[in-house]
């Protein structure tokens, strides 16, 4: 996929109610696929997939194996205090595995995985779901712009091209989350709380420090990306909804808790 950077002045979106101040983070939509993005084996070696997993023993092995078989050699799974054999299955499937002794939440697990990957020289870090919702087929389009240095963050969006694949209930919930995110962070994205992201090493080292341990980290990370002043963009991805992923996904009732957690985090630090 050929993607145009906002620096080129192509398809830049307005993400604020007013004119963005000079130097404020730029964000552009991905353009429709003109060519298929490819990533060389050497470049794939620079990419680390970070997966936070909690009680995903039934799903984690195919996710890890799928990524490795697709030519992404570095996968790190952070088992967030699972009661099942998630960590062992992930390791057997070929992932680096870390284990939180007690459950600390997805945000905490991702930060652990990011730290580990950075210590091993990761240049591009991809946050990827453990339940099989994300497709490795979307990885080239996600990491390509970051590898080329066009942006420091590529944020997956299921609404750019594949909105029809999103169940109605989830679509409404995500629309509310998107509005909430726009109001609180000033960053207007087409998708909120999409866990599929590609982040540059520079961004992670200098600006990403997830302190909201649980699901509110998804808003916090957008805030930190925006505050970094580094360019970012949304990239179209497809989410594979299965009975399993729906069962594991966040329920609407959790939305209020996430919002309160996020606001308290911003208020109290």
């Amino acid at each position, binding site marked *: 996929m050929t993607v145009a950077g906002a620096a080129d002045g192509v398809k830049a979106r307005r993400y604020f109610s007013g004119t963005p101040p000079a130097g404020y983070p730029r964000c552009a939509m991905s353009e429709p696929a003109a060519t298929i993005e490819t990533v060389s084996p050497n470049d794939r070696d620079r990419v680390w997939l970070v997966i936070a997993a909690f009680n995903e023993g039934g799903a984690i092995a195919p996710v890890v194996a799928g990524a*490795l078989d697709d030519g992404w050699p570095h*996968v790190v799974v*952070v088992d967030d205090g699972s009661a099942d054999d998630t*960590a062992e299955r992930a*390791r*057997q*499937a*070929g*992932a*680096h*595995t*870390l*284990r*939180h*002794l*007690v459950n*600390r939440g997805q945000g*905490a697990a991702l*930060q*652990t995985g990011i*730290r*580990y990957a950075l*210590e091993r020289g990761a240049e591009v870090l991809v946050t990827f779901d453990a339940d099989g919702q994300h497709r490795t087929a979307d990885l080239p389009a996600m990491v390509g712009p970051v590898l080329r240095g066009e942006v420091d963050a590529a944020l997956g969006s299921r609404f750019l091209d594949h909105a029809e694949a999103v169940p109605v209930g989830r679509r409404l919930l995500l629309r509310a989350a998107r509005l909430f995110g726009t109001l609180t962070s000033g960053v207007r994205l087409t998708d909120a709380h999409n866990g599929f992201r590609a982040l540059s090493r520079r961004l992670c080292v200098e600006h990403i420090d997830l*302190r909201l*341990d649980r699901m509110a980290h998804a808003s916090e990370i957008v805030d930190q990306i925006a505050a970094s002043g580094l360019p970012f963009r949304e990239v179209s991805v497809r989410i594979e909804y299965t009975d399993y992923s729906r069962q594991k996904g966040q329920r609407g009732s959790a939305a209020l808790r996430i919002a309160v957690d996020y606001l308290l985090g911003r208020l*109290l630090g």
Partner: protein
Amino acid sequence: MFGTMSLFQLLGLGAASAMALLSALAMARNPSRRVPLLPWLALWSLAALAFAVPDVTTRFAHLLGIGRGADVVLYCAVFGGLLVAFRLSMAQRRLERELTLLVRELAVQQARRPEERA
């Protein structure tokens, strides 16, 4: 003085005095805790005074422009409760943060490399 007190006043005075005494003893035993314990000593002493001489709260209320002494006690209790809840919440957040950092450190130290794939 004690003969004119109600049972509620006697019980309250006894409890508040005991807490004030405990605070004073703790301060005497542990000099490094004197500053943090001082507000507690003051609180229990004032509570004991209010139980012993209820009119004190009324006079204090009038000073503040509030009608009844009981209202002052209620406002102070609500404010104090909120303050304690806030401090406990902050302490819990700090503990949670430290727990996460500890868990993360252990996870990174005990990271396992992948098994060789066939």
